[in-house]
């Protein structure tokens, strides 16, 4: 479909003409392992949701290259602003899988952040685009302190229609603060196709309204994503200049487990994109250039399945939530009102 995008590896897993890849085998394998982790997690979550263990779930199936390629660039104390479909990215950045399960269970310990986490991972934005100004503020704070940290802010194609996208990107450009605005253009916002979201053909085009550099990349090519985000952020750590990246990808699954995509898109379209599956591509690349084998692949998948299953076990073993927890964390010090309401509950209980 698209022209003028950055691609390193084509859908057959071959290096795109004129491109070189600086990554060693182990580095490529590490990216692949993360993608497999996301994929296995997506499958597990979908199954658990069907079994009634999790609430409505928005799968990132098909967007693993975009998420892994970008999130794995982050360094210590960088910031990640995921939205609700970026659970894979959050896992890559260090949120434990069991914590993500707890979030999906609607457990009181949702999004518990380990104290030794390397990257600041903000809880996923549920209100579309609301996280974008936050990322600008955090980036602004790092710039004010002359620190090299950057903020990586994810959002979907739908989010670009929101005022918050506009106000935040504009402000970042005015103040030149180090945010990577990373759009996972997965072609749909629930049932709304990209063409109904905007009259332009590419999100990357929107950068010219703000005076930002922008890049359009093959979002199903993990190496293109990784290399672009790496180059962009290395520069950004010195220049503080914000950048808009559009990763062209596709939501292979339903919008959420409550959605039936057959109402609004064709199987044909989905099939076409299935052929561009980022995992297949990465695997083909590994086989072609790094002697990756099916048996190694199976072993990897099994290892990760076990890891995800164990995480689920830990999440499921948590004691159920207790209402008393809601009265904490509203404020730093509990107010008299909340103290009283908590004690009412306890009397009742």
């Amino acid at each position: 479909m698209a022209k003028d995008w950055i691609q390193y590896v084509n859908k057959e897993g071959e290096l795109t003409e004129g491109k070189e890849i600086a990554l060693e085998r182990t580095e490529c394998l590490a990216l692949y392992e993360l993608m497999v982790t996301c994929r296995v997690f997506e499958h597990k979550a979908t199954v658990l949701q069907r079994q009634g263990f999790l609430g409505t779930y928005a799968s990132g199936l098909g967007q693993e290259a975009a998420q892994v390629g970008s999130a794995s660039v982050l360094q210590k104390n960088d910031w990640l602003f995921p939205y609700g479909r970026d659970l894979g990215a959050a896992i890559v950045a260090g949120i434990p899988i069991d914590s993500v399960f707890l979030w999906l269970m609607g457990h009181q310990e949702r999004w518990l952040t380990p104290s030794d986490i390397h990257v600041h991972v903000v809880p996923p934005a549920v209100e579309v685009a609301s996280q974008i100004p936050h990322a600008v503020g955090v980036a602004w704070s790092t710039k004010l302190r002359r620190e090299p940290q950057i903020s990586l802010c994810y959002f979907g194609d739908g989010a670009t229609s929101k005022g918050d996208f506009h106000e935040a990107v504009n402000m970042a450009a005015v103040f030149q603060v180090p945010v990577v605005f990373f759009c996972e253009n997965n072609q749909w916002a629930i049932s709304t196709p990209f063409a109904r979201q905007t009259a332009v053909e590419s999100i990357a085009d929107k950068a010219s309204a703000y005076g930002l550099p922008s890049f359009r990349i093959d979002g199903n090519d993990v190496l293109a994503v990784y290399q672009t985000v790496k180059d962009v952020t290395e520069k950004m750590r010195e220049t503080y200049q914000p950048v808009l990246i559009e990763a062209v990808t596709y939501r292979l699954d339903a919008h959420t487990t409550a959605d039936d995509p057959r109402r609004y898109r064709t199987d044909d379209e989905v099939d076409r994109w299935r052929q561009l599956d980022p995992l297949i591509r990465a695997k083909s690349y590994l086989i072609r250039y790094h002697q990756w084998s099916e048996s190694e692949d199976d072993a990897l998948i099994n290892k990760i399945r076990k890891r995800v299953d164990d995480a689920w076990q830990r999440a499921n073993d948590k004691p159920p939530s207790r209402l008393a927890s809601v009265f904490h964390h509203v404020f730093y010090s509990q107010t008299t009102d909340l103290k009283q309401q908590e004690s009412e509950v306890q009397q009742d209980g």
Partner: protein
Amino acid sequence: MAELTMAQAINQALMQTMAQDDTVILLGEDIGRNGGVFRVTKDLFEQFGEDRVVDTPLSESAILGSAVGLAMNGLHPVAEIQFLGFICSGFHQIITQAARLRSRSLGHFTVPLVIRAPYGGGIGAPELHSDSLETFFVHSPGLKVVVPSRPFDAKGLLFSAIADPDPVIFLEPMPLYRAFREEVPSEVYFEPLGKARVVHEGMNLTVIYWGSPGAWIIPTVLSVEKATGSTIEVIDVRTLSPLDEETIIASVTKTGRVLVVHEAVRTAGVGAEIISRIMAEAFYRMEAPPMRVCGYDTPYPVAQLEREWLPNSARVERTLRMLLEY
């Protein structure tokens, strides 16, 4: 008469209004081909086409603001906000714009707009999908605020809302969309805005509610009546703005005791307004302190806790007994 769920009743009202009046158009996110995330606008796209059932970009402020413009020029837009929590990013278009255009222009420009939104808790949804924000609108002059709690009302109130010459916020309790069916007349009918409904008559206490508690309040009340020998009047307010003070005052004047039940957080909720009016108008008739069973003063909780956090049968029953013993 067919037995319909509330989702079906609303769908039917939209279908019939649109068939009768081609100035009615719908706009919102995923209301067209997808029929809405709750399927409330199902089949309307097929029936009326993309000019009248419009899937918009993901832009709450532009949905609401362009709906104001549509309404200013003689159309009757029905805008959907996918979940009430997401209305906050278009809030000004309601509070400072839709609500004030009539007074700003001395009636020259008007905004016959209905804003529909699924709302309230209890379906295990993610964060921000379950908030009860009706207070914001009740506190903003120029808006009407309607909350049906059964299919019959939903249909009849929606006709009235669309016919109303002013902006109406029409809040649809999500758990009630498919909670039960009831007989709903197949024709067009108008339930008046601004009129509460006495759901159950009684002499010793008045319970006032709107929305989701409608699904369980009567059994709860009946069991307390049975256990205590008292009789309890139950009022479904249905319209939060303007409030039907008359019906409320008449009831509490008779009973002398009142409990207001709402899902919104307690502090500065609409329950406070109702109690203040009761105390202003029926001070000497009250025999016990007016009470409230509401959401606690916290952000809406995670799914595992919502049933306990929300007003529920146990909390209401306990409070009713306390009130009756006063």
